[in-house]
């Protein structure tokens, strides 16, 4: 305690002290009672007790200003949430997963307290990944020049995660108003912090970062925590740079109710962490310095017990979420085109290349809506605009605030897109998720997280993001410049996935993606960027709705379902077959994988009775497996043969062109399979 600081046991007003004591007492009662709900099989099966973190959690909640700040608490932050304003009822509704849970109606795990309405964000269980979201929303705070800061809170062990380093690097580089709090209780479950990093104070690992202040405080002490957090906030506002606060805490109990800490902590330790109980210390101080009498404190404690009792009753009477509601809020309603309702046109003009279609659509949308942003690696440096120049000229026209490079950190690119779109619902973000789809894997945790934000928050937060990725092979690119990743991506509910094969569809789908709420995955067949085969006339205002396949060639004898690079091969094969024996091969270009145009597929299957599914990705566990299964399920009686598939072998894509040719599908392989099926 230092006398010249803002808060002090001798000088802080009695009302304030009382408020703190009430919040801490109520928090502690709830923290102590939470395990009872599990014992009685009511719920709250995940509870990570905060006892021992009381000082810093009180302080985080107290400096949070719901009018202008954004708070990202973690699973141990019950008191943080209470101090930020959540009521005992709201804590219990979340704890026992009731429909009234303001975080998201019992959809997310217990002890994940949130109130999106106040920007107390609903965060992942993936430890510390919300550091990226805090950085993203702080980017918006800075760009829109609004007051406020983003506060991210986590344990010290999860700082080991690579994305935390990416987040802090980004905040330091962009000089963003972020307050990172590390609540240090010495453990990550049972792992002592010495197994995480060489320094005992992980915050000091960041001493070499520029534009970053590092502060330490005693998280078990209310005054030191309040003062440090207030000073941290002042520093951010004055110096316009991020701060890390590492708060020393103790974990009085086990990590959570599935942990038994006596397996790895001896009696000496179990005893001293109790002795250092922050609430007991605060109480002693209030009495020692005669700010309150024993009777006054007893009365407050009684009142808080009564409040919690009432909240418990409300919790027990609260309704559960209904099983029918599970399909609500998987993804928001998309933008519905009103002119090109089926995503086709008869526009006649000079053909444009696919890359030009993308570039012009991006520019048109950026002119149309001032709240669109794009970033990624190499997207904007002088004449270079994207690794394939898709964003050429954009920074010149729209400026560095809206079009900018990102560090080589895909998780950061994706995670900050999620964060920035939390600022408001108007913002639309386009990211080049990676230079090649092959490099999107480092971003997967942020992607997965983003797919379920809308559902998890029960529609309270929609990440409005389009991820563009140059995908696929046929360029002699080898293992890391040839991948198609839709087989993995389409396993996640909460994202639309599109993969055009012609310039007009690329332009039309991109426009629809950017205008829609929700998450879109936009795969670009990079081998076709400049190909005359994919070039088409493109109406300036073209739009393609989601879930509308396009029949690129009609036929009566065989249906080929495809998308992306292989659409062109299928069309060649169909042409050849019709020239040879007059058989009619219908070629359906799916364009959008999620949502899927089941009607067009089924109508065609019913007509032809034979189906060949073709895609560039591996046959084994590729998206075609889902198509084949659905067709068999829904149209078995119309089939005159097995649903066959053509795609890559179950190998990586080799670099040598001979290997690449042996692995990827081509027109000859499609022709052979089509003939076999026609003859079946």
């Amino acid at each position: 305690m230092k006398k010249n600081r803002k808060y002090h046991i001798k000088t802080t007003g009695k009302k304030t002290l009382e408020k703190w004591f009430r919040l801490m007492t109520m928090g502690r009662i709830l923290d102590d009672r939470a395990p009872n709900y599990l014992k009685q099989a009511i719920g709250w099966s995940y509870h990570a007790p905060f006892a021992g973190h009381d000082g810093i959690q009180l302080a985080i909640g107290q400096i949070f200003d719901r009018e202008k700040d954004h708070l990202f608490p973690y699973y141990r932050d019950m008191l943080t949430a209470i101090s930020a304003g959540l009521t005992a009822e709201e804590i219990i509704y979340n704890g026992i997963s009731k429909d009234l849970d303001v975080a998201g109606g019992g959809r997310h795990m217990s002890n994940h307290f949130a109130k999106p309405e106040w920007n107390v964000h609903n965060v992942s269980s993936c430890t510390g990944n919300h550091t990226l979201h805090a950085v993203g929303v702080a980017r918006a705070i800075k760009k829109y020049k609004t007051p406020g800061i983003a506060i991210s809170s986590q344990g010290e062990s999860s700082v080991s995660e690579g994305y935390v380093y990416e987040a802090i690097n980004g905040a330091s580089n962009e000089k963003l108003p972020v307050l990172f709090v590390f609540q240090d209780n010495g453990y990550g479950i049972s792992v002592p912090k010495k197994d995480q990093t060489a320094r005992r104070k992980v915050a000091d690992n960041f001493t070499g970062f520029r534009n970053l202040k590092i502060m330490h405080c005693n998280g078990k002490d209310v005054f030191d925590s309040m003062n440090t957090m207030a000073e941290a906030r002042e520093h951010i506002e004055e110096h316009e740079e991020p701060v890390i606060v590492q708060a020393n805490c103790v974990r009085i109990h086990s990590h959570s109710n599935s942990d038994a800490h006596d397996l790895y902590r001896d009696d000496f330790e179990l005893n001293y962490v109790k002795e250092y109980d922050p609430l007991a210390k605060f109480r002693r101080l209030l009495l020692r310095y005669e700010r309150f009498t024993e009777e006054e404190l007893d009365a407050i404690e009684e009142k808080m017990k009564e409040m919690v009792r009432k909240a418990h009753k409300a919790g027990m009477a609260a309704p559960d979420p209904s099983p029918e509601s599970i399909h609500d809020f998987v993804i928001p309603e998309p933008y519905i085109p009103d002119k090109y309702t089926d995503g086709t046109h008869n526009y006649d003009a000079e053909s444009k290349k696919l890359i030009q279609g993308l570039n012009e659509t991006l520019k048109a949308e950026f002119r149309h809506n001032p709240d669109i942003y794009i970033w990624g690696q190499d997207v904007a440096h002088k004449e270079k605009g994207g690794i394939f120049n898709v964003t050429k000229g954009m920074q010149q026209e729209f400026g560095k605030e809206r079009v900018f490079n990102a560090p080589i950190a895909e998780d950061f690119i994706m995670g900050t897109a999620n964060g920035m779109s939390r600022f408001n619902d108007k913002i639309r973000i386009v990211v080049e998720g990676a230079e090649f789809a092959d490099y999107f894997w480092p971003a997967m945790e942020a992607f997965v997280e983003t797919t379920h934000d809308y559902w998890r928050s029960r529609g309270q937060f929609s990440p409005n993001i389009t991820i563009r990725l140059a995908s696929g092979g046929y360029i002699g690119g080898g293992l890391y410049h040839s991948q198609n990743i839709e087989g993995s991506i389409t396993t996640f509910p909460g994202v639309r996935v599109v993969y055009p094969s012609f310039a007009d569809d690329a332009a039309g789908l991109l426009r629809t993606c950017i205008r829609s709420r929700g998450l879109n995955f936009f795969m670009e067949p990079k081998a076709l960027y400049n190909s005359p085969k994919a070039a088409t006339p493109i109406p300036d205002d073209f739009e393609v709705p989601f879930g509308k396949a396009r029949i690129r060639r009609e036929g009566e004898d065989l249906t080929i379902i495809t998308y992306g690079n292989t659409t062109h091969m299928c069309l060649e094969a169909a042409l050849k077959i019709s020239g040879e024996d007059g058989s009619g091969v219908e070629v359906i270009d799916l364009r959008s994988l999620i949502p899927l145009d089941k009607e067009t597929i089924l109508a065609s299957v019913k007509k032809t009775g034979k189906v060949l599914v073709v895609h560039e990705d591996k046959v084994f566990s590729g998206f075609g497996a889902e198509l084949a299964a659905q067709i068999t399920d829904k149209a078995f009686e119309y089939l005159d043969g097995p649903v066959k598939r053509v795609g890559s072998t179950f190998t990586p894509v080799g670099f040598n062109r001979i290997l690449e040719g042996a692995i990827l599908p081509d027109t000859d392989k499609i022709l052979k399979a089509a003939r076999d099926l026609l003859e079946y």
Partner: protein
Amino acid sequence: MKKTGIVFSFNTHKTSKIAKRISEAFEDTAKVEMVNVEEIRPEQFLGYENLICGTATWFDGELPNHWDEFVPDLEDMDLKGKNIAIFGLGDQKGYPENFLDGMGILAELFEALGARLVGFTSTEGYAYESSGAERGGQFCGLGIDYETQGSKNKERVNAWVEKLKLEFR
């Protein structure tokens, strides 16, 4: 030598042992009184002209609660004319980044309040990375490391007390 108070927490384990050893080292030459910092009142503290304050360091560089909770009272004191010697306990191997920091925190506070600090000792014989108790190559008191150099306690305490006998008034 005037009446000397040894102030520390009676609830501690190792700090108490060292306090006892110190008082024994004074033997007949001094009137030494043991005072429990957990219950101390400001008048009591101010009643001594010579003080020996003992603290361990806890939790990566923190002053233990028993001292920390007395600090708001200390801050209002005028310690001009007081001679204060501090002994600190720490673990140089387990906590090399914050060795004996608690001793440094007390030293800074007492000095700012006008006290004269006595009983500085050499840092020779200790190995650590950084210490809040270090002042120009010396410790601002006596450093005791029970965990890794317990066998040196006796010799260190005795030498320190001899020094204090000269430095106290």
